[in-house]
C-alpha cells in the first residue's frame, strides 16, 4: 500500500481526534471538556471533507461547532457547575462505568469486524452534488427521506414548545 497525501492527513486527523476524545473525558474542567469536544467534532468534519462529502462536513460544523458546542458553553457559563467535577468518585460507580465501557467496546468492535464494508471507501475525487442531496432529502420515492425529515421537524417543534413551557413564568 503506497502512502498518499490523503492517508497521511487521515492518520493525523484520526490521531488528533483520539487524543482529544480521551482528553474530553479525563479533563477536570467542564469548559475544557467542551473545547476538546469541539476539536473532536471539527475533526469529524475534516474527515467528511477528506471524503469530498462537503455538504455533510459543513453541516457538521454549523450544527455541532456553531450550535451544540455554543449551547454547551452557554449552559456552562450560566450555571457554575464546575465544582461537582472535583468530587471523589465511588468505587461502585467506577466499576459500573468500566463494565459499560468494555461492553460498548465489545459491541462496536463486533460490529466493525463483522460488517463487510463496501471495499475501500476511497474518495472518488468528485464532490457529491448538492442537488442530489436535496432531492434525496425532499423526495417521497424509494431511498428518499421526506417522511423522516418531517418526523424530525415535529420532534424539534415538540422540543421548542417544551422549552417555552418550562422557561415561561406564570
Amino acid at each position, binding site marked *: 500500500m503506497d502512502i498518499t497525501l490523503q492517508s497521511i492527513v487521515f492518520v493525523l486527523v484520526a490521531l488528533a481526534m483520539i487524543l482529544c476524545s480521551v482528553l474530553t473525558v479525563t479533563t477536570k474542567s467542564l469548559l475544557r471538556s467542551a473545547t476538546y469536544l469541539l476539536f473532536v467534532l471539527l475533526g469529524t468534519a475534516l474527515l467528511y471533507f477528506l471524503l469530498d462529502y462537503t455538504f455533510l462536513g459543513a453541516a457538521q460544523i*454549523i450544527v455541532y461547532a456553531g450550535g451544540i458546542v455554543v449551547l454547551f458553553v452557554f449552559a456552562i457559563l450560566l450555571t457554575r457547575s464546575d465544582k461537582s467535577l472535583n468530587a471523589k468518585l465511588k468505587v461502585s460507580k467506577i466499576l459500573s462505568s468500566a463494565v459499560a465501557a468494555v461492553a460498548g467496546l465489545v459491541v462496536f468492535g463486533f460490529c466493525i469486524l463483522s460488517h463487510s464494508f463496501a471495499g475501500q471507501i476511497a474518495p472518488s475525487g468528485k464532490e457529491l452534488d448538492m442537488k442530489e442531496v436535496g432531492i434525496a432529502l425532499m423526495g417521497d420515492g424509494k431511498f428518499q427521506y421526506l417522511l423522516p425529515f418531517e418526523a424530525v421537524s415535529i420532534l424539534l417543534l415538540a422540543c421548542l414548545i417544551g422549552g417555552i413551557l418550562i422557561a415561561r413564568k406564570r
Partner: protein
Amino acid sequence: MNGFLDYYNFKPVAEWIHSSLCGVMPEGLALFLEGLVVAVVIILLYAILAIALIYMERKVCAFFQCRLGPMRVGKWGLLQVFADVFKILIKEIIKLKNSDHFLYELAPYLVILASILTFSCLPWHNGMGIIDFNIGIFFVLAVSSIEVVGILLAGWSSNSKYTLIGAMRSGAMMISYELSLGMAMLAMVALSGTMSISGIVESQADGWNIFKGHIPAWIAFIVYLIAGNAEANRGPFDLAEAEQELTAGYHTEYSGMHFGFFYLAEYLNLFIVSGIAATVFLGGWMPLHIAGLDAFNQVMDYIPGVVWFFGKAFLIVFLLMWIKWTFPRLRIDQILTLEWKYLIPICLFNLLLMVVLKVYGLVF
C-alpha cells in the same frame, strides 16, 4: 463573446503550475507545496488588508467627525498603522493569575481561524477562488460560526466580570443575527440556483443579482448589511465592547498580539462581510454587464476582475463605516428585538417572495 473575460482567467496558469510541479515530484507533495504557498499568500493578504482597513477606518472616522485623523507619521499619516503594528508586536503578552491559561490562549486562535477560513472563500478573480466547494455559501456560514465559541471562551477564561458580560452579549447577538444572515443568503441562493461561490458569480454574467432579483434582492441586501454588521461586532451593534460600561468587552484582559488577533479579526470580518455581499449581490469579480448591450459589456471586460472585486468590496466597507460612525450604539434588548421581531419575519417573507417570483419567472 467573453473574449476578454477569458483573457484574464487565472485557471490556465494555476493548471500549468500544477502540471509542471507534478512533472518533477509526486502529486501529493505538489498539492502539499501548493497548499503551503496559498496559505502563506492568504495570511499575507490578510495582514495587508487589515492594515489598509485600519488606516481607512481611522481616516473615515476622522472625516465624519470633522477631524484630520493620523497626520504625523509619514505623508497623511500613511505610516501610522505600520508603527502601531510594530508596537503591538513587541508588547508583552500578559499571563493572568487564576485563569485557565489553555483556553485563554486558545480563544484568539479560534476567532482568527474562523475569520481566515471565511476569508479564503472570497472570489478574488476569475479562476482565483481558493476554497470553492459546491456548497460554498453554506461553508462560509458554517465556519463563521466557530468564531462565537472563541469569543465565549475568551470572555470566560479571562476570569473577569467585564469580559464575561461582554462575551455573553456578543455571543447572544451573533447567534441571533446568524439566522437572518443565513436567510438573506438563502433567498439569493434561490435566485442563483446554486450555492457554489464561483457558480453564483458566473450566474451574474448577464446582470448582477441586485438588478436581476429586484425587490426581494434589495430587501435581502439591506437585511444582509444589518446582520453582517452585527456579525462583525461593529457599527451600532458594538455593545460587546461598549467602552463606557464594559471597558472593552470580551478582549479587555488581552494584551499584545493576542489582542491584535481580535482586532485583526474584527476588521477582516468587516471586509469578509463586504466581500460576500459583493459576491452574492454585486457579482464578485464579474464586471458590470447589461444583457443586450454587447459593446458596453466588452468595454467593461477590459477592467480586470480583481479590480472589480476590490472596488465593490471597499464600496460596501465604506458604506458600513458610514453606518458605524453615524448611528449611536443600541442596547442589548433593542438589538435582540430588532432581530427576532423585525428582521426574521421580514427574511421569511422575503424568502417566500423570492421563491414565488422565481417560480413564476418574474426575475430577470
